């Protein structure tokens, strides 16, 4: 086996900075160094931008979280006061609870529905592009349009959903006007809007499954369920893993739909973390407190994501 050549053109800057080895190194060490240099080169564009325009401001946010600041005056350093206040903030705890409740409903539903739609769309049949585009429509529509539509569909008085339920003899709930049903309403609208997103990503994964694999399984007499369990799901597990992690990260930061559908109501029953962050930062003159909330939220998401990265070894199959 020939040794991989270093990417000479890929990383001119990184290469210029790398010390020229005087002493003859062992082949393995030189290979490691070359790979590291190549990696630096391939990472440089994104890493520099991330450091400059995301990680820098994130550290800025961490700094702001130690201040009492209303954005228009001079900040006052207050140490960890904002964090100790968070410990006793019942509204924040409630918002965290609502956010978790949202995730508990949203995540399984959007993944299962998204997978189902992706499987349905994964066929070489006429008009599939048209169907794919249709399922993508809610993804690209604005939340304002989607929420107005869903509030109309879930109208407790004469909405379509309650009319159907009524015809089936089931009394329809008060949906977004009822404190207990406000969050389920948001979940429903969110799942419906994001199904296309999940489906599109999984579809790209499904397309990569070699057809002959499935055909061979069919020849072996495997049924639909067995093919799904033992071939399809393992083969698209990298895509599944990706949408799970992304949906979780985004789900923790649920905001737009709550803002336009319920404004956190009624009476705060569907208030979520990012809504409190936005209110505190731009409405209540407490950007320091809002930043502390953001850092806490960040820590929670990071922990969950790290756990997912660890758990992936059990179920995600790469080539």
């Amino acid at each position, binding site marked *: 086996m020939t040794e991989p050549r270093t990417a000479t053109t890929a990383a001119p800057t990184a290469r210029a900075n790398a010390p020229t080895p005087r002493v003859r190194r062992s082949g393995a060490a030189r290979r490691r160094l070359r790979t590291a240099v190549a990696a630096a080169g391939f990472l440089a564009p994104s890493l520099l931008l991330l450091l400059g325009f995301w990680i820098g401001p994130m550290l800025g946010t961490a700094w702001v979280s130690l201040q009492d600041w209303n*954005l228009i005056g001079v900040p006052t350093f207050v140490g960890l006061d904002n964090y100790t206040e968070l410990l006793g903030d019942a509204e924040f705890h409630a918002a965290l609870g609502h956010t978790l409740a949202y995730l508990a409903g949203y995540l399984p539903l959007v993944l299962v529905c998204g997978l189902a739609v992706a499987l349905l769309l994964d066929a070489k049949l006429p008009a599939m592009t048209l169907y794919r585009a249709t399922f993508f429509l809610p993804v690209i529509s604005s939340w304002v349009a989607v929420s107005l539509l869903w509030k109309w569909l879930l109208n407790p008085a004469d909405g379509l959903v309650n009319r159907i339920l009524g015809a089936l003899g089931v009394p329809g709930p008060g949906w977004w006007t009822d404190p207990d049903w406000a969050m389920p309403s948001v979940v429903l609208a969110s799942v419906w809007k994001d199904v296309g997103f999940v489906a599109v990503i999984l579809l790209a994964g499904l397309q990569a499954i070699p057809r002959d694999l499935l055909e061979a399984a069919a020849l072996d007499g495997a049924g639909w369920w067995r093919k799904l369990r033992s071939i399809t799901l393992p083969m698209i597990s990298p895509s599944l893993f990706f949408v799970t992690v992304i949906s979780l990260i985004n789900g923790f930061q649920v905001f737009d739909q709550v803002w336009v559908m319920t404004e956190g109501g009624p*009476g705060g029953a569907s208030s979520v973390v990012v809504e409190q962050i936005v*209110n505190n930062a731009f409405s209540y003159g407490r950007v320091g407190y809002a930043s502390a909330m953001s850092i806490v939220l960040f820590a929670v998401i990071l922990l969950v994501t790290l756990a997912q990265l660890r758990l992936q070894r059990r179920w995600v199959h790469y080539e």
Partner: protein
Amino acid sequence: MTTRRRVLAAAAGALAAVSLLAACGQDASGGADDGATGTVTYFTFSAAPDHLKDLDAIKAEFEKQNPGITVQVQTAAYDDYFTKLQTAIAGGTAPDTFELNYENFVTYARAGALLPLDERAKADQDYDANRLYPKAREAFQFKGKLYAVPSTFSDVVLFYNKKLFDAAGVAHPTADWTWADERAAAEKLTNKAKGVYGDYQPVTFHEFYKALAQNGGSFLSEDGKKATFNDAKGLEAAQWLLSKPGTVQPTVAEIGGKADYDTALFTSGKLAMWHNGIWQISKLAGTAGLDFDIVTEPGNTRKANAVFMNATAVSAKTKKATAAWKWARFLGSSQKAVETRLGSNWELPAVSDQAAFDSYLKKTPPANRKAVFDALADIALPPVLDAQQSKMQDIVTQALEKAASGQATPQQALDDAAAAVTALIK
């Protein structure tokens, strides 16, 4: 090795960002001047989307009268306005002049973001303080100093549909009406079979503080240290608002999230009485087949009317203080601004100019247009808690929502809200 170096680079980048942040808000080059020339930026929430041309007309006249000064207008929707303004101020790029409403004004004045204007006013021979509406001038003072030039005001009145009243044989509302009169009429006018509702008043902070005043109550204790809106008078005010949805007014569920439903109800001739601001007049006057009039809102034990006031502030950091002052003054009191606002049914100019208002008053509908000014006799301004205004408003609105959705009794909800507001005052 590369990883370690990268971590170092990350740390360096972060440090730079943090020091940038720490440096902000420290360069205090306030109120500087380079003569009355150059470009003045103006940020406003009240022009888009309907009055951009009117603002352009005012701007053109100002530039004509003040050669050498150009005004650069920036607009944002009200919902996004303060996010953008605060970020700009935090970043040290505040516009030279910007619009502020009464409720938010004190926060900006106290934080030192506004240029005190008394000296500019004194030095300006063209400025006539008496031309400005006195209550508005008072409202935009902080610690006895003027910090913004009042520009516009609007008040809230009772709109009513004459045809519905006549059809139901109910006498038209008068300025002497009380809550009981309104209630009785609303019940007679409500005809759910025909989809007609008797009354519409949102259940929010702004309606509540006003109802409280109409009931002779007080939002805060006299020393301003304690919330007192949970007393018997407050409870009665809350119940007054809460009693309407479901009886004489559509419930939240019946509205079903339809946007601007109350407006559509009234313009469709399906709503007899509507508590709303005079900014609705131009739209209603242009609605064919709608016969409406206005009257000041009924009180319970006394009259009290809500007034919304806006003003033009000058940034403390501006480098064009003289030009900025001139523009703020022009927006508030110039003939052109007054005429343009009245002519286009924008909000009303905050001036004491009877001659200008005369022509406004002659326009119909509504026939009883003078109610707009009658309302000013009994103003109830919203309570203002320095830095915590929006938080307080949200607490009260949320308490009313809790009561409306049955999460708490009205008394419980008010007690909790009062405790929370008192805690805000500290």
